[in-house]
């Protein structure tokens, strides 16, 4: 029997770009650090040696400019992959993204295409703080014409990145830094994973839970702990936040009568708001309990780990929300909470993985 081929998501992203560069001469990378010795947390490591600096382009510190340049090249049929080491750097490029990239196809009545990928790495780690620690997934979901992809593990990180590069639309590929560390089986072949919406990753009849990006992992832990208490979660990994496809979620809620959405952004005006609203509008009659959301509280990301601990929800909080939703008795919720919290305490709360040595 063949050994499973295990990669981290960071390695999977590297492999996807390597294969895309090899397969299509129109593909090229642009990023501050894309060609430097650290290669965007290793996700572009070695590519400049293999493909040269014209295809793995090191960028000046000019996010708005090179995003617009990427859009212009894309309109000419090139396939740029723009990379930002932090989501926040892309705030400088909103006009190009929301204006030119998102609208080129529409305003040209379908004649222009902007096959552009924007990789955004969401910072979390040691004290990244207010301006290096935001995910802002809701921001990138706002505008029609953009796609927003949120990989939660290595297989999707590779497959969805390949699909994003092959897509004729501008795609925001939002990588949570802590997802980079997750490992799992990844096929070697360059198989795109369709950008077609949520995937059920656990089947269960008690409650429908939709999770996004890194929080899919925390939620999976929560669901596993709850399974021991007899709670069966129908768990979806959101994967694609725009265009937002909720049919499978609605079908599930019609069965379970209960909905929880867990995302990595602020709860207020977050992805969860739209999912809750849409599902409630269409499944109201089948719902047995009010929907719920788990998200970040309404304040900036604090740097100090003492404050960050209060900021980031974890598996135990997700489990608490699910427990409340299905009416699990308090004592059993408390037991699950305790188990999960104890597990989590084995690694400090501000690091994603034992291999992590800070600060990123």
């Amino acid at each position, binding site marked *: 029997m063949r050994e499973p081929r295990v990669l981290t998501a960071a390695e999977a992203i590297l492999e996807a770009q390597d294969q895309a560069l090899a397969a299509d001469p129109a593909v*090229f990378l642009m990023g501050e650090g894309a060609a430097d010795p650290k290669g965007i947390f290793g996700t572009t490591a070695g590519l400049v040696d293999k493909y040269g600096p*014209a295809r793995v382009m090191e960028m*000046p510190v*000019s996010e*708005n*400019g*090179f*995003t*617009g*340049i*990427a*859009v*212009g*090249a*894309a*309109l*000419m*049929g*090139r396939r740029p992959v723009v990379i930002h080491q932090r989501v926040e750097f892309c705030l400088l490029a909103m*006009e*190009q993204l929301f*204006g*030119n990239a998102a609208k*080129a*196809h*529409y*305003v*040209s*009545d*379908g*004649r*222009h*295409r902007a*096959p552009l990928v924007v990789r955004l790495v969401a910072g979390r780690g040691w004290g990244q703080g207010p301006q290096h620690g935001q995910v802002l997934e809701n921001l990138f979901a706002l505008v*029609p*014409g953009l*796609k927003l992809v949120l990989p939660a593990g290595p297989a999707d990180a590779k497959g969805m990145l390949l699909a994003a590069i092959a897509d*004729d*639309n501008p795609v925001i590929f939002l990588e949570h830094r802590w997802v980079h560390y997750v490992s799992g089986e990844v096929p070697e072949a360059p198989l795109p994973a369709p950008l077609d919406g949520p995937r059920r990753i656990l089947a269960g009849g008690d409650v429908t839970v939709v999770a996004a990006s890194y929080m899919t992992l925390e939620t999976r832990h929560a669901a596993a702990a709850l399974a021991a208490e007899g709670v069966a979660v129908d768990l979806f990994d959101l994967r694609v936040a725009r*265009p937002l496809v909720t049919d499978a979620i609605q079908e599930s809620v019609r069965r379970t009568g209960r909905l929880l959405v867990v995302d990595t952004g602020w709860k207020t005006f977050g992805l969860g708001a739209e999912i809750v609203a849409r599902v409630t509008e269409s499944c109201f009659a089948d719902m047995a309990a009010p929907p719920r959301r788990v998200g970040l509280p309404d304040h900036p990301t604090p740097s100090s780990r003492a404050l960050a601990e209060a900021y980031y929800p974890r598996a135990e909080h997700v489990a608490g929300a699910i427990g409340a939703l299905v009416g699990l008795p308090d004592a059993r919720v408390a037991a699950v909470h305790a188990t999960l919290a104890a597990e989590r305490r084995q690694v400090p709360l501000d690091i994603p993985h034992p291999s992590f040595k800070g600060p990123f």
Partner: protein
Amino acid sequence: MNPAREPSDQELRDLYRAMLRIRLIEEEIAARYAEQEMRCPVHLSVGQEAAAVGACAALRPADQITSSHRCHGHYLAKGGDLRAMLAEIYGKAAGCCGGRGGSMHLFDPDAGVLASVPIVASSVPLAVGAALAFQQRAEDGVAVAFLGDGSLEEGVTHESLNFASRFHLPVVFFVENNFFSVYTPLDQRQPARPLAALAAAHGMPALEADGNDVLAVLKATKEAVADARAGAGPTLIVAETYRWREHCGPNYDNDLGYRTEDEFLAWKARDPVAAFAARLSELGAMTDTDSDAMAGAIGAEIDAAFGFAKAAPFPDGATAAERVYA
């Protein structure tokens, strides 16, 4: 046009014809705007025809240009389709954008008008991106970004200049300095220094050309384009010219008091179209019969194009939600 030699009489007449055509088209838009059927903003370039025509005459069909809100002249000079332009302004399905963009989004993929964007300077990096595509494909195409004096205040313009210079891209930044951003004069927005200093800041050559002299513009652009095609990188061209009519809309607006009637009249006396006609007749390159015939033919073309645009059907409201994604 071959960069090495002087234009022939025929080419001179073609330059004149192209300017006259833009002038007459925009004057006709102005005349008909009050009918309230062109229900979108229009930014006329009357007075600035020499810049658009001189610059585009240095280009090949496959070269690409980008423009701004004030894009009619560039679009037409580069060979954009007149009927598609008017239909667009009338909001019709036959418009170059299917009625989705209006007058500020003119583009024509076949003619090399890559995009016009109404956000100031937003199309400047698009031109650099087109140049990058040419370079990556090892083609000898050139991109020209048309930008106004106001665009020079936007950070993205500087980022674009830096990038183009760093990567030696085949792009020409063609600045039409008409001394105003809307109603605000240049000296209220920028310190006093030659605009060409911006080129030096980004390590590229600058050329200055009289923006009301189509031949001067042509000459400068030919030089810049030849350099770009030869792999010598970008050039910044500054051409001074003047917008005659109001910033947006069909009227004159000197009554607002943001510029003096004298200044306006001095520029009007340097009408790029009339001055070039006079020069050609002096040179013996164009007779009154030639120019009358041109005006007649252009007039007929314009009438037909307006007829087409007005009669063309509106897009079906039910299609409004289509083509968001490719």
